[in-house]
């Protein structure tokens, strides 16, 4: 466990050191970026819309009953941008993209493709880890920004359509504007950036240490997703504590 943590920190450091080479790997970064967006955009859209809707549905009637229905927009907006969008999207991306990264690099490891790279003096960190890390570190914050907007829209639609809440679009977004500040959105986007680094490092590391054939690849994929999610939830708590100050 601790050996893995040490190796992941080392891998992250090697990736940071390799950052100046990003321009040389721009085609791979773009390919990965396209892959992440292509694989996730529709899912992000659906998930965010319904998360926003559910939060509105859960909190709206309660707040209306207590005579503070005008706060529904603020509650939905605040919870989505600071917590739900970054965490839910990070978990979604860990499942969809982190697993793919671990599987791809893991199979390259098992079938000696990474050994072949090393014999050609091509660093697996530069060739495989760097483009994936940069792509996901750019893509996830963008997806989270998109998710926040769609989540707000989902909440607003439910508030308008549900008779027990019966709030207009204008009232919903007026309440949201009164509560949510730009720094709250920035807070959530910053969290997603950290989560993206976690997903990239954990998944690439699991891929690079894969051993034992197809069963080993399966194990690596499972570990990559589970470890990413556990770390995301723990880091979410720690980041929330730090960012609350």
């Amino acid at each position, binding site marked *: 466990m601790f050996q893995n943590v040490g190796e992941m920190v080392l891998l992250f450091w090697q990736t940071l050191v390799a950052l100046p080479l990003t321009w*040389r790997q721009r085609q791979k970064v773009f390919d990965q970026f396209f892959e992440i967006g292509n694989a996730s955009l529709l899912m992000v859209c659906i998930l965010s819309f319904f998360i926003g809707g559910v939060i509105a549905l859960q909190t709206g009637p309660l707040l209306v009953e207590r005579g503070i229905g005008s706060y529904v927009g603020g509650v939905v907006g605040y919870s989505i941008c600071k917590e739900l969008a970054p965490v839910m999207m990070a978990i979604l991306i860990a499942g969809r993209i982190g697993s793919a990264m671990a599987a*791809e690099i893991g*199979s*390259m490891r098992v*079938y*000696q*493709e990474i*050994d*072949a*790279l*090393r*014999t*050609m*003096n*091509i660093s697996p960190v530069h*060739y495989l880890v760097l483009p994936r890390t940069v792509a996901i570190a750019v893509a996830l914050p963008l997806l989270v920004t998109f998710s926040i907007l769609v989540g707000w829209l989902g909440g607003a639609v439910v508030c308008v359509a549900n008779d027990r809440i019966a709030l207009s679009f204008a009232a919903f977004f007026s309440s949201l504007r009164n509560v949510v500040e730009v720094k709250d959105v920035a807070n959530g986007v910053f969290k997603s950036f950290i989560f993206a680094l976690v997903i990239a490092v954990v998944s690439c590391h699991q891929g690079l240490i894969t051993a034992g054939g197809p069963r080993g690849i399966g194990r690596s994929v499972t570990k990559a997703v589970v470890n990413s999610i556990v770390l995301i939830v723990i880091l979410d708590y720690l980041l929330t504590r730090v960012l609350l100050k």
Partner: protein
Amino acid sequence: MSAMSSNPGGVSIQVRGLHKSFDGQEVLCGLAFDVQAGEIFVIMGPSGSGKTVLLKHLIGLETPDAGEILINGQAVQSPEIMSQYRMAMVFQSGALLNSLTVGENVGLYLTEHRLKPPAEIARIVAEKLAVVGLKDTEDKMPSDLSGGMKKRVAIARALVIEPQLILYDEPTSELDPLSAVSSPRKLSICKSALPSPRWSFRMTATSPLG
């Protein structure tokens, strides 16, 4: 760090007291031998006797438990060895990158180290593929190739490096019987296709019963 070697000639290898164990099972036990620059050196032995493990040690992919491997007197584990000497290994399975085309695989070394412009890389790739008898296969994917063709692509990929040392792991496996019989002659042709006469070649092969 440059990918190009500053030493144009072949390389000599000294192996001294090499030991390697996996899970308590000793695979290499005090191995010692010398290979001179330009020499063709064949290692034969039954399956599982540690030939591939030895090759991986020689190119720095494995770290020995004890003993040392010297490339021109310099430890193979030293970080700068891969940038000082051009070495290539043709893996038993070919180890082609399955997400790249044949042409991209063969030109990977030149592309990644930015040693030539794209048009020049395309010319070199076509030339090396012709040497191994796979003309006009640049756009095929490795999954479209037979085992023997993959192996020949892997040889072309090694030739592009213009290596001072080539390690062939089971060069005749996955080849058809006729190709297997003629492969030593073909590998000699590959050797003569390289620009310097002082290349070290190393091959492993199983025994007829292996």
